[in-house]
């Protein structure tokens, strides 16, 4: 499956899905006007990739500086899809980057992890820029 890339904008993250290496990167800001529309194609690419994966070691890096309430719903869906991929026999590590002072993003990641506990959840604090 071909790699999938969308460059960052002021309000939407860079999507760098290297399916060939089983590395998926999401980084930047996430407050698009319509998160469901922005992430629609991204989630469908991910679903295609996960459907073809069976016993892969997948690394997911999420480094979002900020995400708005409608992006939050998408992240929930993303965790769910990755968790299902573990049930299907894959091994998924989720590196969850957050600003060291930003407890909200850390707590959100931890909360979701308690719901989707098959993921290897790895919170990583980044020092203030």
């Amino acid at each position, binding site marked *: 499956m071909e790699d999938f890339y969308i460059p960052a904008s002021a309000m939407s993250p860079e999507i760098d899905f290297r399916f060939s290496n089983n590395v998926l990167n999401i980084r930047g800001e996430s407050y698009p006007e319509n998160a469901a529309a922005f992430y629609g194609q991204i989630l469908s690419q991910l679903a295609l990739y996960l459907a073809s994966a069976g016993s892969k070691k997948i690394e997911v890096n999420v480094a979002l500086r*900020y995400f708005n309430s409608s992006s939050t*719903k998408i992240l929930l869906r993303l965790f769910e899809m990755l968790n299902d991929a573990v049930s299907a026999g894959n091994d998924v590590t989720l590196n969850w980057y957050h600003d060291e*002072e930003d407890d909200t993003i850390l707590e959100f990641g931890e909360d979701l992890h308690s719901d989707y506990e098959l993921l290897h959840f790895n919170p990583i604090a980044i020092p203030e820029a």
Partner: protein
Amino acid sequence: MKNRNNLMDLEGFSEFRDAAQKQGILFFYNGYFSQNIIAAMADAVRYRIGSQDAKGSTTRRVFSTFIEMAQNIIHYSAENLTDENAVDREMRFGTVTIGRQGDSYFVVCGNVVPEHAVPILAEKLDSIRGMSMDEIKAAYKETLRSESESSSKGAGLGLLTMARDSTQPIEYSFVNLPEKGNAFFYLKAII
């Protein structure tokens, strides 16, 4: 002092600026909101709050509240330049301000809403105002899991996000407008 009642002369503008400063206003915008305008303001807001030596978590909460309020305006203000049913590239009218009083920050927004939305908003906001922080977090989680991605543009979760980021209950008021069928809606969050 001529034309004071008609035009804003520089002395009048100076008074306006001083009054804003006395209120602790750090940022004020009154005009059309589009996604691109919000993105430009977002930079200004981050620098402005960041320069106040606020804690990183405070800056993030102020920023988050600002974005949720501004996106509510582009989705729900009754004064729109774009089609009523548009979900994208919307352009609607509203006001937003950010200020500081002592160690607290406030974010206030205002926009016109249709009268039929008033009781719905009031009920949602009263319910949130009556919640403890633990209840707000629980309601946030529940709403996050129950709202489908496609249904609402997200108002329920947006209001809960503001409440979660606030240190005091969010305040609101509705002001009747002379034009029939609409009301002016104000929302205030303290962080």
